[in-house]
């Protein structure tokens, strides 16, 4: 009997092995070629001379690996430390990303909290209303604020009309406009994880605390906040990480006075055409991002472990 089925069985296995190989190899090699290799090139260019790195920079790789390492130089990184534009841009990106994250948390938490307390039959709709803006064009959502925040824009005319101001406020082209833009576009990322954490929260814990003489405020600080900490941390990273490398928002709303590293990189590349410096800027941005990304992943892991 084994003799009868042996041969086709073997062919069958062979085909399955081939299928398994293709299944793994196709996405694997795609990402290797279009994600990992490009990074190696960025690192390579960041460590090479401007003269060598202008378009036909590939020949420098042809000389073999040893030559490639011999040609490495840290000139571009030294340049970054010498020109204070870059330091300022990194620091200002960190500051803007941090302040916007705090603001997003302050505005997002009450919304998430109210959603978690809303009647069950509303929740799916509320969720959809939070996610819906995410599906609309990011560029358009940022653009919408130009008309609102400009000197003769709608916000100024509204404030003037209700008599709060007599002189138009300058909001567009300041960092305030960038904060508004970041809070506006990233607030769904803050609300969703916090909402998910609050929805799982057992209401009887708060009732118990109140029965035992806790004031409502105290119960909130002692129970609700600690139990939604996982969601808060996740939300903060989901806002902070993309905000740090943001390009569109500071370019459209921040004007020339707002320095952010994503903008500097873009301009270094497209306006100054200095590829090695742009690559070095990218490498340092990546190094700055590694810390929050690792912290974020650890938080997610802990959360999964706690659930499992």
């Amino acid at each position, binding site marked *: 009997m084994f003799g009868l089925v042996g041969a086709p069985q073997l062919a069958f296995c062979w085909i399955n092995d081939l299928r398994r190989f293709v299944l793994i190899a196709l996405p694997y090699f795609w990402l290797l070629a279009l994600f990992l290799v490009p990074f190696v090139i960025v690192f390579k260019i960041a460590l090479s001379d401007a003269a060598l790195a202008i378009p036909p920079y590939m020949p420098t790789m042809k000389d073999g690996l040893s030559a490639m390492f011999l040609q490495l130089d840290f000139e571009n990184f030294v340049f970054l430390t010498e020109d204070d534009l870059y330091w300022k841009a990194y620091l200002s990106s960190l500051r803007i990303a941090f302040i916007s994250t705090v603001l997003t948390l302050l505005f997002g938490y009450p919304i998430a909290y109210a959603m978690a307390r809303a009647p069950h039959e509303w929740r799916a709709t509320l969720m959809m209303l939070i996610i819906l803006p995410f599906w609309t064009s990011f560029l358009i959502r940022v653009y919408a604020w130009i008309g609102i925040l400009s000197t003769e824009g709608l916000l100024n005319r509204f404030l003037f009309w209700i008599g709060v101001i007599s002189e138009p406020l300058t909001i567009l082209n300041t960092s305030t406009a960038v904060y508004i833009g970041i809070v506006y576009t990233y607030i769904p990322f803050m609300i969703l994880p916090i909402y998910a954490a609050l929805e799982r929260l057992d209401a009887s814990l708060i009732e118990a605390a109140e029965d035992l003489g806790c004031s409502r405020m105290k119960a909130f600080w002692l129970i609700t906040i600690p139990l939604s900490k996982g969601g808060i941390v996740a939300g903060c990273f989901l806002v902070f990480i993309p905000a740090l*490398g943001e390009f569109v928002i500071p370019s459209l709303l921040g004007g020339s006075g707002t320095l952010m590293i994503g903008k500097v990189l873009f301009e270094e590349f497209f306006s100054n055409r200095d590829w090695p410096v742009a690559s070095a800027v990218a490498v340092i941005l990546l190094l700055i991002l590694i810390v929050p990304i690792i912290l974020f992943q650890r938080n997610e892991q802990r959360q999964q472990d706690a659930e499992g």
Partner: protein
Amino acid sequence: MNRLSPFNVVSLTFGFAFLYLPMLILVIYSFNKSKLVTVWAGFSTKWYGELLSNEAFLDAAWVTLKVAVISSSIATVLGTMAAYTLVRGGRFFGRTLFSGMIYAPLVMPEVITGLSLLLLFIGVGMDRGVMTIVLAHTTFSMCFVSVVVSSRLATFDRALEEAALDLGASPFEAFRLITLPIIAPAVVSGWLLAFTLSLDDLVIASFATGPSATTLPMKIWSSVRLGVSPEINALSSILIGLVASGVIIASLVSKRHSVRVQQEERAAERFEND
């Protein structure tokens, strides 16, 4: 907890007003007669007319649509394969690297992804245009598809697949007949996500393209840099309208689907109890 305090009501009202008012204003002002976007001068649809006769915008829209359809379809196939490999594939050489490469693009700043891809395309001497934007978009959106699909794969009952294998199906048949129909909703939402990401992308496309191809976000970008224009308002309103109706239809369909599933489950329970 089903009692909303006044503070909750206020935060919901302000929250949703904050999210939706800017877009609403954009749509209202797209019907403004005046060229000045902040002064209301009466109702008019003339900006829609001008937009639809603007060849450059129509060309860019066509390029964008082409890129989005092709890249999201390839990304869905590759992303589903990657998800299956990660969840069901067991051990293989370089698995950690593979999952790292799936998750890294999700948090990578667009400027870095764009820069690195451009350097690659120039390095291998590839002509930049529609083709290179498709490659770039496929690469980052397959990672999003893979995350969506793998979360579905991780939650469904593996015994169904094992039963099919025990009954003599090949792994491929088990995938096609059992797994694929079950994960289909996730695959569809992965495709939709990839499609919108591609439609929306400005930064990566700006890096990946050459002079031959301009996408709609790039076109919007270059005119928005010069300030607010009523034509862009009209274009934005069309896009917002399309997305809103798409999402509403999708949610109605999935709601009907979940109601049907619930009914079937209830019927099955009754059957078991009898």
